[in-house]
């Protein structure tokens, strides 16, 4: 027998929502003691609710396409996180490790290995040089396990992965692991898997909690599946074509223009109620913000979301 909540939804979802609420309360207490690190991209820092990436948290990147540049941006952020660890006061600090969980075996390291040097800007030169370690799991279970293990390790600065369809239990497991170990999990989600794993629970159904913008349809065509997530923030990455950058001097393949928008975040967080977007220029040669191109678009407040998929019965719903 299936018990239904006030909104006619299964009780399992109701319990899940309550769990989100409890976790939000715990998170608020936990966040006070956590350090926030800059991503190295000022527009992105302004976009993120905490003004940067909080150590021991997850950040989801929604990629519009396989060639959208989301992994490159996440990789650049990982390099900056590892660099900020390596520049500690101790000269003999161990090398900060960036673990890349490469499920499909497609990761091509020469594209990002020079980023560890920061383009000669001395990232990580204070202590040990950051390094990439690649793990190639062959099954989904191995992938979930490898991400979990890496997030629990205190010596790992960041874990970069592009998991496929993930059960929310695994996401919760990763969140707790990151909280325990202090590593930052950067999870790049593809277009096809987005919205499929939100709260389908074990039944495998499509999510029933769906946040849609009330007005002011977003200017870009990234769908806003702003369902709650266990991640600290969910950033949608949308590449802008070179032709769209009218008036910009041509920079060749070394600069990439990306539009970022906050497509969700922690449940009951104020940040997710606003649709905010910004643009940044990623220097593909150094993995840094392109020099001279820091006049990013102002964070826009496109309005508040009018209603949640589940309007009633939850303490953590939008007010």
């Amino acid at each position, binding site marked *: 027998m299936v018990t239904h909540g006030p909104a006619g939804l299964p009780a399992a979802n109701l319990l899940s929502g309550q769990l989100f609420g409890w976790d939000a309360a715990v998170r608020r207490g936990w966040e006070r003691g956590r350090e926030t690190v800059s991503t190295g991209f000022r527009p992105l820092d302004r976009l993120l609710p905490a003004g940067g990436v909080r150590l021991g948290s997850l950040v989801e990147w929604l*990629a*519009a*396409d*396989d*060639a*959208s*540049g989301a*992994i*490159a941006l996440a*990789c650049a952020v990982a390099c900056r996180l590892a660099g900020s660890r390596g520049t*500690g006061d*101790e000269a003999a*600090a*161990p*090398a900060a490790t960036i*673990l890349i969980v490469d499920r499909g*075996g*497609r*990761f*091509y*390291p*020469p*594209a*990002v*290995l*020079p*980023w560890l040097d920061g383009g000669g800007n001395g990232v990580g030169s204070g202590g040990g040089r950051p*390094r*990439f*370690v*690649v*793990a*190639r*799991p*062959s099954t989904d279970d*191995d992938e979930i*396990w*490898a991400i979990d*293990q*890496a997030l629990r*390790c*205190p*010596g*790992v600065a960041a874990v970069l992965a*592009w998991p496929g369809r993930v059960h929310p239990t695994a996401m919760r497991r990763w969140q707790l692991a990151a909280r325990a170990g202090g590593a930052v999990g950067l999870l*790049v989600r593809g277009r096809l898997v987005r919205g499929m794993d939100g709260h389908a629970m074990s039944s495998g159904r499509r999510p029933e909690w769906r946040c849609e913008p009330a007005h002011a349809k977003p200017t870009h065509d990234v769908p806003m599946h702003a369902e709650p997530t266990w991640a600290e923030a969910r950033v949608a990455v949308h*590449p*802008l*074509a*070179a*032709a769209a950058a009218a008036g910009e001097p*041509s*920079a*060749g*393949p*070394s600069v*990439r223009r990306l539009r970022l928008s906050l497509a969700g975040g922690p449940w009951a967080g104020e940040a997710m109620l606003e649709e905010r977007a910004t643009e940044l220029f990623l*220097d*593909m*040669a150094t993995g840094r913000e392109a020099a001279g191109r820091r006049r990013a678009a102002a964070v826009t407040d496109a309005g508040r979301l009018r209603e949640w998929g589940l309007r009633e019965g939850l303490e953590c719903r939008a007010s």
Partner: protein
Amino acid sequence: MPRILTIWLPRWPVQRRLLERPELRRVPVFVCRRERRGVMKVVSWAWATPPRAPHRVGLPAGNAATARIHAGRIHEGMSLAEGMAVLAAAHGSRACQVAEVDYDDPVADRAALEELARSCRRFAPIVALEQPPAGEASRPECLHVDVTGTADFFGGEGPLVRTAVWTLAVRGVHARAAIADTPAAAWAAAHHTDSLSADPSSAHLPMRGARHRRWALVPPGGQLRLLGPLPAAALGLDADVLAQLEGVGVGTIGGIARLPRKSLASRFDPQLSRQLSLFTGERPEPLAVPCSTELPTATHPFDVPLSLRDTTADDLAVILERLVEACLGPLAAAGKGVTALQVRLDRGQAIGLGEPSAPLVIDVGMFQPTSCVKHVVELVQLRMARLRLPREIVGITVDVVSAGQADCRQRTLFGEPAEASAAQVTMLLDRLSGRLGRRAVFEPLPLADAQPEHAWAAVPPMRATKRRAMPVPAPSSVRRRRGPQQHDGGVPAIAAAPQRRPLWMLPQPVRLESVVVAAAAEPCPTEQASAVVRPPAGFRLEGRMRDVVKAHGPERIETAWWRGPTVRRDYYVVETSDGGRYWIFRRLGGSAGGSRRAGAERPAAQDGGAWFLHGMFS
């Protein structure tokens, strides 16, 4: 004066396999290791019983000596394909079809050699494995036996060395042996028994016609006199030192000994004077006792067979923890840690159950020496969780295969977070490699190679730190041709510019369909020329048409000539209207054989000019 008996086991990796599988004596056996990108390199090879008459057409029948000479050109480090080609030239292609190729397993080779060393204690109590020179891979093939004072039990040194060789021959081991004053002299004599006389009283110079002699005796104090005519390589020198000696016209041990000793160290590599002093006995050479005699082992036998179906993992972990603790305790006391461990689950006599009775062996390796019992047990459990365990076992044995010096530091009262986190990372990598596989966890190392597939190497995580200081190979040839739409001013000549390489590279290029080539603004003289210089205006991918709004390139990349048939490609970085960025190439007409390296591509003659997707700037 000490007397050392050296037993040389030529091509030991192959011999070990022949001992385990005697049926392989009829076929050629190659032991290879897989290099990066799947290239197989020959570590050792042998054909125990080659056919007397080569099957090769055109080779005179019965000319087995010629075949042996041909096959003798297969040497260590040669690629398997080359080795097969030489074998086919010597014995025909049929020999390649029946050849047995096995992966290199140096740990198993060493373990088998140590087991053989333990059995050689019948000749003397001190038996040691040879120590390869520093810098070489640890692949011993010799045993040193200290037979000082024990030869009389066998009737003298002559009968002793003969007994040693024939005792091993009875077991199926081909060995050559020699007795001398020093391990280095005995090593040199054992490797050149063909050119030495077994009886030192009969001849002092290498005998003619003494082929296939398996033993030699060097009288006390006579190593320089008897072994002087041997080549300089018998001292175990590196190739560059040998080249130096060859440059000054010195080719024998006697010639080296006649050089002024004072200037030897300044004129040549220090290795030369060191090896010469070891050879003459001026410098003592300690014998390295086999590790297994020192490394601990622990066994837990069960009175009655233990059914693993009725045993929980926690119960098994308790036993494992006790055994591992018994092994690691002595090592930790000596400041050492374990780097490789073997857990054997001895099966019972499963009569009628159809299970093999061989023990289930679980090999566990660590990237760095560790003495943490909990960590080792965790690694063993990770491996056991992915294995099909036997129904019942009669005992568990934990054997330390190799150990290393642990990184011991003075610890602070509350521990240093930096040190703790470094240890945690090492444990994490051990765990990951334990479950995902040793090759599935690696650290990428950049290489200066123009060919994208060879621009990096996957190395074990702990070795990459040491290799970073090594100079990378010189960049291979890369040709760049600047097209009309190229905007990459200042890009270095090396093809490793990161902005030109995709973050995701497909394992095999995918052929693009429905490629639209933009019409030329000005008519080109030939249709082919217009197609070469112009990137596509659109292509279909995943069922959707993508319009190319910008393209950077071309960048022409050719495979190196020494890597096989040439593949020539013009690469472009294209941006589509939806912002996607792709790495595509146009295949240029090259040699037809190049299609084999391109995987999914068809021969150049068929699809010359076709477009392929090779990567995505994800």
